[in-house]
């Protein structure tokens, strides 16, 4: 196993453990990510992959080990958590858009209230982001009036509005109808190519093959194997990885 590098790494995790009651969801997970790296995390359901990325912006709390994001260690210090959350954008499986706000307000809300940007500037940035994800015509609609794929693209724009250095994706296409998956993946591919650091929990292996720098296979709360797409797809070392890939490919 590679030892996590500290120098130049934007995310460093050392021996992260997490329990739900008696159940251990993460067992000594050590991993790091370089700036601009795109990492795809995959594995069977319940393997701890979502829990792991949710620990990185502290939607879940790890109980032992260290997580250092952009030089700030995650601890119970509230200021650290706030600082990290504004560095880390997150996209959820269920989109979690704010249904009572228009698409534009969904995106401009956090820049206005957290970054204290003037309304006009926040909305202008929001419009630019909507253009980037290709749905500027829907700006004044409510999330419920959009298709799933459009909603997820709004969610990506909402996360980008805080100008994060890291983007976390928690199964971003799992709740989508098949014909909408591509429009979301296209946005993610464009983002990956623009140099964003991304941690993506997904089973979209086509996406992984095209843009991932590294694949990480999780099972039973542990990292079983990691490597380049080339290594993982053509020459997996572990029996469990082989079996899982045989099922999903």
């Amino acid at each position, binding site marked *: 196993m590679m030892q996590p590098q500290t120098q130049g790494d934007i995310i460093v995790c050392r021996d992260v453990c997490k329990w739900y009651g008696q159940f251990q969801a993460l067992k000594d997970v050590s991993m790091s990510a370089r700036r601009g790296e795109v990492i795809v995390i995959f594995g069977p359901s319940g393997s701890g992959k979502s829990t792991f990325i949710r620990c990185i912006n502290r939607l879940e709390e790890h109980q032992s080990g260290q997580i250092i994001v952009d030089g700030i260690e995650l601890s119970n210090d509230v200021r650290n958590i706030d600082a990290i959350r504004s560095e880390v954008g*997150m996209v959820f499986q269920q989109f979690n858009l704010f249904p009572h706000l228009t698409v534009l307000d969904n995106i401009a*809300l956090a820049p206005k209230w957290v970054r204290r940007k003037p309304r006009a500037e926040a909305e202008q940035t929001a419009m630019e982001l909507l253009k980037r994800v290709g749905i500027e015509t829907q700006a004044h609609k409510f999330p419920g*009036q959009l298709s799933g794929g459009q909603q997820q693209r709004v969610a990506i724009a*909402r996360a980008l509005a805080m100008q994060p250095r890291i983007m976390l994706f928690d199964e971003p296409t799992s709740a989508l109808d098949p014909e909408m998956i591509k429009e979301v993946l296209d946005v993610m591919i464009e983002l990956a190519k623009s140099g964003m650091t991304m941690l993506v929990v997904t089973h979209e292996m086509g996406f992984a093959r095209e843009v991932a720098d590294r694949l990480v296979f999780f099972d039973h709360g542990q990292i079983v194997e990691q490597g380049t797409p080339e290594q993982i797809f053509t020459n997996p070392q572990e029996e469990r990885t082989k079996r899982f890939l045989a099922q999903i490919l």
Partner: protein
Amino acid sequence: MALETQTAPPKVRLDPVRWMRDNLFSSWANSILTIVAVVLLYSIVQPASRWIFTQADWTVVVANLKLLMVGQYPLDQVWRVWLSLLLTMAMLGVSKGVWSKVVGNVGPAYVLGLTLLAVLPFPLYGLTNRLWLAAGAAVLIGGWWLGRRYGASPTFRNGVSWAWVLLLPLVLLLLRGIEPLLPVIPTRAWGGLLLTFVLAITTIVFSFPIGVLLAVGRRSSLPAVSIFSTIYIEVFRGVPLVTVLFMFLIMLPLFVPGSESTDNIIRAIVGFTLFTAAYIAENVRGGLQSIPKGQFEAAKAVGLNPFLTMVLIILPQALRIVIPSNVSQYVSLYKDTALVVVAGGGMLELLGISRNIANQPEFLGKFIEALVFAGVLYWIFAFSMSYIARRLEAEMGVSKR
């Protein structure tokens, strides 16, 4: 091209015979139900209308109309009540112009009602009152026009919202008076429908924010806050309203020295408010619980702190959900204001006065007429309230979809 051609739905002709066959007589059971319903309806409406138009002696209401409306409020100062009504009607009109769908038919219905009262040849009241009623209809229409004209401007809309906020204190000040500009009318002279309104509206305005704070407090992670909120809510929900009123009107002066000088109405409002807030809190808590966890997580993930999350994301959604239950709480509060009579303190609101009238020597025992009249008044405003609330909910539902 085939995708573009759409066939129109078949036209349905409006045919009364067909409608009755489809809806009232579609089966044997349905026909029997229809007939039973018609017979029942007739057996209620027929004697009721006979009583209303031939047997009832409405002179009891005519002679006591002023008492029923404003209690002992001095006759030469009643213009202040009328002016308050005018202000409210003007605001209603402006709101109808700005938020037409929310106010809905309440606007035209009030114009119609006020106009009819002003021009119909009832022997109830003199020319001055007719002029005031006509003025009420006129300012409502005027406000409506104003609202339609300027309703598109956000500044104007904000102004209207603020005017609603300021309306209550302004009206209360006008009714009570301020030396030396306006002679002060002691609140013990306030009565009838006027007192019912003052009690109900003031309580609604104060109990809402308190209830929301308690609901949020009960879910707080700070034990002191959540325990206090829980105890408060459970205590006030577990005690009958009459008991709460009795405490504040009769017992408080016994325990807290100096409190006997506090106005009775204020003490009653405090009692009503504290009681209603507990129920509002539970309604709102139900709304808060129905907000999915993902909303909290999304708010956290974009960096909102817990306070902003609550104010910007959670409460706007939760409060919309609980409009129906909150409004039914307010409607029942509006009617429960009648309990101030039972709890003592010498206040006579609409129902209290209706019952008292039956003690007047010339109208001895004529309480049914006064009670029916009071009932109609209660119904008009309770229905307006729930009607506007339903429209409000539907309007906000559009954005929610």
